[in-house]
């Protein structure tokens, strides 16, 4: 891990960059702070959970989500902002025969604009190298064991295409109130390394 001295050095380099960006009229400190605050406050995996729970309870929404996930996110007021680029969000649905899991082997592409920054393990060389070679083994490390006859499909995200897994609704979930339904759809379920548990 980064030591205190090293951390100070890195902070100083970032300070120099922030000053340069401000001098060149690209971005000021207030906007940097605003972006960090937005990230903390409103960009989180709960956004993805809301999309999934809505899809569980509304077939029309499910169809729209699988057809155009970005538009389906916007429908729930999930902006997907941050980068003004052409990143597209794709929703991939688990079925009794198919389980989806997401990686970015080349770096750390993730539906960040919708779900917030990825977990540390998602960005690690360990996960990126291994999940494409031994997805069942990696899933088992997360406590997720799939029957042998379920196909595992690994989606390699890119700068342009980000993936969100739509897990199957677990038995009994429809008896739960909305907020408890949301809570079963964890971030790891949206990446595909876990499945919702009631």
């Amino acid at each position, binding site marked *: *891990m*980064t030591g205190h001295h090293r*951390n100070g050095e*890195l*902070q100083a*380099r*970032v300070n120099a*960059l*922030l000053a*340069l*960006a401000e001098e*060149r009229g*690209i*971005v000021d400190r207030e*906007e*940097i*702070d605003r*972006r*960090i605050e937005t*990230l903390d406050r409103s960009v989180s995996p709960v956004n993805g959970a809301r999309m999934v729970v809505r899809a569980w309870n509304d077939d029309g929404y499910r169809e729209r989500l699988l057809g155009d996930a970005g538009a389906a996110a916007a429908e729930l007021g999930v902006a997907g902002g*941050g*980068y*003004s*680029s052409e*990143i597209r969000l794709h929703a991939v649905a688990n079925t009794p025969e198919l389980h989806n899991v997401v*990686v970015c*082997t*080349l*770096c*750390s592409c993730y539906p960040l604009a919708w779900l917030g*920054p990825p*977990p*540390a*393990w998602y*960005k*690690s*060389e*360990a*996960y*990126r*190298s*291994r999940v*494409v*070679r031994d997805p069942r083994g*990696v899933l088992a*490390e997360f406590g997720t064991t799939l029957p042998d006859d379920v196909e595992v499909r690994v989606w*390699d995200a890119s*700068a342009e295409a980000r993936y969100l897994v739509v897990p199957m609704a677990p038995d009994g979930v429809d008896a739960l109130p909305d907020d408890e339904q949301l809570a079963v759809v964890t971030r790891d379920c949206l990446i595909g390394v876990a499945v919702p548990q009631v």
Partner: protein
Amino acid sequence: MRLGAVAYANDVGGMHGFGDLPEDHGFESVWEAQVFALNQACVAAGVYTLDEFRHTMERIPPAQYYAMPYYERWLYAVERLLAA
């Protein structure tokens, strides 16, 4: 396309020997969140594209790449792209 063992340090799909998955944590320091937000702002302002940003990180020589903590790679790339 992979040439020889490692053409680009980031191209690790299917490779062996990277060990266990690390513990989960968010931003560990203020500078990490700041470099993250600064990169977002630069892309949004059209200073450079997300692909240029990625490409800059991908060209970090392998030994250096693996020695850098994750967000230091970001910092390295933003420094090069902003100074250009």
